[in-house]
């Protein structure tokens, strides 16, 4: 799966606060009780402080499939509410096809946030995701912590 590089396009802010973006969670981020750590919902330097997700229009199982097909591990797909990202001080952006991003890609942009604020955002998004429940559980999930 490749994305066309579009150097002229700009990311656009998502405005539907009710949209639930698709976030993959690495198996090592799943606790013994099966819920994810807040680490799973917090960006860092490795992703340039922009947390990677897919748009809601991608079914949860399809989101997982694309992730795994790209050679990465995932314990499953969890939801990130656009409104919660905005409320936490981040900006949810549609940046599909930009800078090599795959189709349907959306970033939770935290570049303007300090470490504590990012940590708090991760905590809040995790709590909300847990309340919503896992959208797609991958087969043979590693639930050790």
């Amino acid at each position, binding site marked *: 799966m490749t994305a066309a590089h579009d150097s002229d396009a700009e990311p656009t802010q998502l405005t539907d606060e009710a949209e639930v973006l698709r976030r993959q969670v690495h198996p090592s981020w799943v606790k013994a009780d099966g819920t994810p750590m807040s680490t799973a919902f917090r960006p860092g330097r490795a992703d340039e402080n922009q947390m990677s997700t897919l748009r809601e229009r991608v079914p949860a199982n399809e989101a997982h499939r694309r992730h795994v097909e790209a050679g*990465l591990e995932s314990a499953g797909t969890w939801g990130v509410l656009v409104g919660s990202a905005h409320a936490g001080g981040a900006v949810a952006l549609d940046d599909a096809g930009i800078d090599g991003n795959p189709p349907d890609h959306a970033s939770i942009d935290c570049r303007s946030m300090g470490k504590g604020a990012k940590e708090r955002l991760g905590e809040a998004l995790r709590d909300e995701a847990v309340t919503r429940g896992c959208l797609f559980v991958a087969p043979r999930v590693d639930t050790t*912590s």
Partner: protein
Amino acid sequence: MSEGAGDDDAVVFAYLKLEGPRFQGRGMPVNSVAEVAQFREAVFTVARRMYLDENPDRQRLPGNFDEAFDLRLIEVEAGSAVPKLLLNLTKIRDLPDGPSWENALSRAVPALAVIVLGLTGTSVEPGTNTVALSPKELTVVAKLGSTLGTAESMVFADTAQNPNPTVLDVAARIVMREAVRVPLAPPADRAITVTGVIEELDGAAGHFRLRAEDSSLIQVRLSPDRPGLAEVAKRHLAPDGVTAPDVAVTGIVDVPDGERVRLLRDVTQIELVRTMWEKVLVDKLTTISELEPGWWGPESVPPDATALLHVQELIPVLGRLDIAFAIASTPEGSIVIEWSRDGTTFVAEIEPDDQMYLYRGGDNYEDRESPFDATTLVAFAESGRLR
């Protein structure tokens, strides 16, 4: 097993001959039938030991195995006391695991011969396997020929065609009994400590089963002088055999050093060695230490080695705080320790540059960055306070 006889379900079992003036006449003296019975006991003892050694998950011979070793004296060959022994295979083959028992019996007579040769000081071929009998088991072997006179011998082999049967004359019997008498002195009881996981506790009876670190199973009997130990054992019981702490159990054994321990008695101490959470954290740390470059995208890196070492050193302390810690690596190589208490999330992140980030969550969150300090981190985990 020996050559078959006419009956498909029975085979001639071993060659046994009693020699001496008393045995020249027809048949064999009635009071010498005891030697046949003792031979049967010696073979049974060796076969039993072989079976248990080859089936370490068994503590005892399965039920009916003794009865199934149905050896029958069907005739005495004319001219000498050569009792013809037939082994009825029907009972053996009807048993669960009967083939294993039959196999052990088929090898028991040659194994008995090697043991007797060893006890009588006769050299055996290098590389000959020998079965290690306990002192108690050796006394059964040493009783072979015990009713025979000084001019009488017992000869035995696996088959009548064996060119080198074992001969137990009076001299050999004397040497054998002297050899067995030395290890028969009860080995001195010695205290040992075994580490493992407690399974199958019977608190009222004061015993439990311990699965040792080498996966062997040990029956443990608590000392009656320590009534509180049953409660200690109950606290550390593994209901599923896996999620339980490692404990060090101190008691008495009566086997020499190096011999397998099956029973630990008069246990006076059960000490916690490693909590369940320690074991869980160690397992998790091992898993994340194996993450490779690119594990979460092209810019992600494996966990920092120094950070891993810090967490490894913290685990024995954190594992005893009775807190459900979760640990993970970040794509930047930090190690994150996360836990919650009363609905509040706490995070301690050990970063690659030996820095440490502590976070207490909630709407009025607090955080602090500083050089890594184990004491500060542990205090934060214990109290939940940053200052």
